[in-house]
């Protein structure tokens, strides 16, 4: 099973999904991320799905789970880069991802986190 790498930039953890996600990979990622948030004291999590061509109910639920979980550990989550076809499909599937913040791209996602946490992007 492949693992999704978690990168740290300042106080933000960046997860860029570049592989076809299978369910076990998703579960391991949630656990890895929880552990990294606590260990690094990160204040923000960005999940970049620019390269993800489908989001089904299992993957969609991961976004909600990570958002809720990180909030409990004092970190904000933003999902960035959702493709239009993925957004259309998610709505028709019946998954609205309530409670998950989104931004169009990585830069806007960084800015969104930076706006609520001013010292975030400069790495202190």
């Amino acid at each position: 099973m492949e693992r999704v790498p978690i990168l740290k930039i300042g106080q933000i953890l960046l997860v860029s999904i570049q592989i076809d996600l299978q369910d076990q990979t998703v579960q391991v990622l949630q656990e890895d991320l929880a552990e990294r948030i606590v260990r690094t004291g990160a204040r923000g999590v960005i999940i970049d799905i620019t390269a993800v061509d489908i989001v089904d109910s299992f993957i969609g639920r991961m976004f909600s789970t990570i958002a809720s979980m990180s909030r409990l550990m004092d970190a904000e989550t933003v999902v960035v880069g959702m493709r239009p076809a993925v957004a259309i499909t998610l709505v028709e599937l019946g998954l609205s991802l309530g409670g998950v913040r989104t931004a169009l791209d990585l830069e806007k996602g960084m800015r969104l986190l930076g706006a609520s946490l001013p010292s975030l992007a400069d790495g202190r």
Partner: protein
Amino acid sequence: MTAPPQEPVPITSGDDVVRVRQAVRTAAAAAGLSLVDQTKIVTAASELARNTLVYGGGGHARVERVTDARGRAGVRIAFGDDGPGIPDIDLALTEGWTSGSGLGLGLTGARRLTDEFHLDTEVGGGTTVTVTKWAR
């Protein structure tokens, strides 16, 4: 008219669910489905392949390109398992209902994302779900 059937893709692990998605993507693109329709049928296939694995105890998916009487191309996928079957079909097709730990969007979501949806099940006799998406 139907293209020669492909070998069924076995579904016995999470990696196989990914393989089913890839096979459906290839067939949907070859049938000329739009990007949005490709995404819908691949997403539906992902839900149904997971159901086959989790609730059916494993099975297989048969992916084929089909053509209707008017010459319209499409992709059809039949998911089959020899699992316990579904005792109450109406309940299983109720939004948000789940017998497991999922969200209950698998069957209902797959039905909404496809043009044709057939569910064939018998308690103790396994389940077959067949979905079709046509090019517009």
